[in-house]
């Protein structure tokens, strides 16, 4: 813990050589901190497994996500899983997770859903961070009128509960996976802007920044070389935890019928389409639900680990 503390503490080091004397390898130090925590490692392993599944979805899944099996022996809509090892007749085709309401192989669709949830979640939060962090950085660093203008706007956006605002936005721009992602991204911007601003303001007032300014560093150099690199920790952590939330919210929009359509193998939409079959065919909800929960859990575990590794104050 103490070695970690040294990387973060901004001691009034010898002024001119401050950069050269910085302990090397902050990245490696952080990685080691993350890997020291069992839960974060579990999260990371699960995430890597999902990334693997997403990349090789075509090779891993036995069928195509749109293929329907109606008319084959034993195949009917919402058929229960058929696994030969567990006594399913040999003449029936094997479907590990059963068939969905349109006679499509659920296992294939759950596997392909990995692509959408991982990719869209990542993209959504990436864009939200880019916009939100820029706004927050400008507000925090420039201050004055810009600060007031940007942050009041963010305040107004924050007045709406996230999902409700996202629903309203999707109503305007139309329902699709991309638009759901866009709406969730827009809704997340104020949160990231606030975090970034708070972080920038704290860093701006630290001794090493003031010293750098006294040495004649330009405004731009101050922002990009001194303040920004030292203000990224909170946004990084919030971003990782935010991906979990984004995956969840996009699935929620799809569940409500405002995101992915019937053809797209998206977990939220799969659950939403079959929610009335919960009593007759619970497997249709169980498998996509488990996949969704596992993904979000993995992001949360990893995000928590990252936070603990980057913020030594939390170690006690």
């Amino acid at each position: 813990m103490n070695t970690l503390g040294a990387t973060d503490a901004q001691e009034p080091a010898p002024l001119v050589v401050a950069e050269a004397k910085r302990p090397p390898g902050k990245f490696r130090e952080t990685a080691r901190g993350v890997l020291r925590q069992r839960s974060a490692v579990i999260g990371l392993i699960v995430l890597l497994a999902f990334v693997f599944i997403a990349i090789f979805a075509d090779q891993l899944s036995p069928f195509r996500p749109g293929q329907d099996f109606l008319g084959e022996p034993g195949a009917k809509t919402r058929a229960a899983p058929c696994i030969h090892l567990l006594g399913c007749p040999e003449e029936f085709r094997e479907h590990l997770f059963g068939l969905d309401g349109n006679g499509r192989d659920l296992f294939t669709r759950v596997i392909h859903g990995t692509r959408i949830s991982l990719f869209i979640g990542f993209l959504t939060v990436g864009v939200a961070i880019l916009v939100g962090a820029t706004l927050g950085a400008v507000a925090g660093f420039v201050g004055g009128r810009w600060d007031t203008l940007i942050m009041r706007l963010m305040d107004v956006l924050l007045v709406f509960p996230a999902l409700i605002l996202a629903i309203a936005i999707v109503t305007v721009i139309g329902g699709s996976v991309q638009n759901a992602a866009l709406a969730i991204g827009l809704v997340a911007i104020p949160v990231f802007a606030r975090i970034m601003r708070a972080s920038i303001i704290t860093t701006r007032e630290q001794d090493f920044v003031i010293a750098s300014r006294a040495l004649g560093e330009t405004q731009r150099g101050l922002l990009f070389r001194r303040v920004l690199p030292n203000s990224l920790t909170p946004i990084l952590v919030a971003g990782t935890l935010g991906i979990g939330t984004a995956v969840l919210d996009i699935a929620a929009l799809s569940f409500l019928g405002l995101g992915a359509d019937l053809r797209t193998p998206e977990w939220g939409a799969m659950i939403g389409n079959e929610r009335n079959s919960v009593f007759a065919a619970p497997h249709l909800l169980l498998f996509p639900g488990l996949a969704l929960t596992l993904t979000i859990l993995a992001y949360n575990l990893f995000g928590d680990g990252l936070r603990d590794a980057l913020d030594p104050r939390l170690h006690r």
Partner: protein
Amino acid sequence: MAQYIIRRLLITIPIIAAVIFLVFLLARVLPGDPCIATLGERATAAQCQQFRIRFGLDQPIPVQFLLYAQDLLSGDLGTSIKFRLPVTELIIQRLPTTIELSFYALVFAIGIGVPLGIISAYRRNSAADAGVMGLANIGISVPVFVLGLVLAYVFAILLKDTPFALPPSGRLSPGVRVDSLAEVWGLEHLDGLPRAGLDFVSNMYTVTALLTLQWEGFIDAARHLILPAIALGTIPLAIIARITRSSLLEVMGRDYVRTARAKGLADWAVLRKHALRNAILPIVTIIGLQVGLLLSGAVLTETVFGLSGVGKTVTDAIAGRDYVVIQGFTLIIAIGFLMVNLLVDVSYAWLDPRIRLS
């Protein structure tokens, strides 16, 4: 204290104005012609012209906004296209369901989350701590709609015909009814605002049943609320448990706690008199933040459990392109959310004098 509240209220006014403007804009940029949406595809140009004049849609946007604001001030939120009811009427019918549901979800979350957090902090690094925090991690990660469906399956199908069976949908069993306050108290002649208030409360079935001692109705309504409240309250519960633990751990390392221990105070007295009081601020913050999450979650919970609350009304309105309802309900939700945040800030000031004075 009063000064602080007034100052906070004054800050809220421009935000409400901005929210109203935003919601107004939202309805203007919605795709599709409101005339076609209201009168149907076969409406003629002349009918549409008449429709626009009637609803002021032929006026310039700034004038429309003023007209809209004027209507708002007189308590008119427009008339629902789909239900052919004033939106205010719909709010009186539907909002109480959501408030009732959110309230029980929050009670569940606080009532279980805070004690779990305390146990975890006191038995730090024990098996109990690891178990609670592991469960909290899972609790935060399960989507409301997945948990809701799982609960419905377990309690309505697997436990069917056992004493633990619980109804998976609706607010009351068939045949059971809760008489409204106006009926029970013989106040049916009332109208206007007092009647609206009375009906509003009447639509919270457990409250009404309790006030008028309709025990059968109370038990039935409460049984219908258990599963939705658990589904909705689980994520907040997990978050509250985590914050309670970390907040307590931080405080328990302080000198004054050690002093209290050293002078021989019993464990629970240290907790109650010293630790909890100083740890409560972050917990209250988090509870306040949960309200937004509860409202978002309520949309999903109501859909899963077939409760006609605010969330279900909004999603139905979207499906039916009922712009007026979307507008009215979004506004009400935003203002309600704003008021809750205000309440949280005021409770801070009450809990921590430093905030009040700064």
